């Protein structure tokens, strides 16, 4: 096993862990936001427009954390700077 082999192995394993661990917190956060929004819409159906609009934008902000993890793992897999 050369050093390059070890770099590939570690990169692949770390890429898997990155996306697995990195998507836990955003998933929980989005679920929480969604339940709150559904709760509010059930209480006040009149405000459904405003709530769902804000929900979309807020979820996009929360989701960007997961997207960062995805981008890092994609870089590790397909554009690894340490591998030739």
């Amino acid at each position, binding site marked *: 096993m050369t050093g390059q082999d070890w770099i590939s192995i570690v990169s692949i394993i770390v890429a898997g862990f990155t996306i697995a661990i990195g998507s836990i917190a955003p998933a929980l956060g989005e679920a929480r936001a969604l339940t709150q929004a559904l709760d509010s819409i059930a209480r006040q159906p009149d405000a459904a427009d*405003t709530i769902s*609009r804000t929900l*979309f*934008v807020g979820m*996009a*902000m929360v*989701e*960007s954390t997961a*997207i*960062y993890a*995805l*981008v890092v793992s*994609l870089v590790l897999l*397909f554009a690894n700077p340490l591998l030739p």
Partner: protein
Amino acid sequence: MDAMTPTTVLTVGPLVITDTVVTSAALSLLLAGGLSLAVRMEGPREALEVVYETLEGTLRDMVTVDVTPIVPLILTQWAFIAAANLVGVLPIVASPTRDLSLTAALAVISLGAGHVYGFRAHGWRYLKSYVSPNPLMLPFNIIGELSRTVALALRLFGNVASGELIGAIVLSLAGPLLPVPLMLLGLITSVVQAYIFGVLTLVFTASAMQVAADRTHPTPEAT
């Protein structure tokens, strides 16, 4: 990875022209040409006016500042990004937004728009928003502006590129027709991401104008 990296179409000296450039230029020409042709005709113009006024009303309800100068920018972003995301479902053509360069360019436009409209609303006093609440916060304000721009670019890129990548992987593992449900999901994602990009540009621009507005007309809530 041909699903994620743009393919080179033409090399002119040091310039490398990728399919992203070709597709996005063709889309821009198509959108601009088609719409400017449509407003010359009687029927389509009235339909477009109704659409414009509906969308302008939607934008107006979202923020408290006057959105009239920003509306054309946001609607252009919506039209271009939605078209660029949706063109990926066509065979052969790939979404130009799966290229980080294009999404970064769009995000830089969004960053510039915030500053331009902030300046236009309140002149050089706008720069004071960088040293508020006190000069110690200057680096944090700058980092905030930059990270918000990077997030804007990466969010659009990540969503579109991961959609295309998943489609390609399922296609190579399971064969044709299997990626169709994923592509249908991708259609929703495309439109929602375009919507979100425009709305975030609006929110950032409006907050730049708002900050300056608070400074010139201090209200009890703002202090």
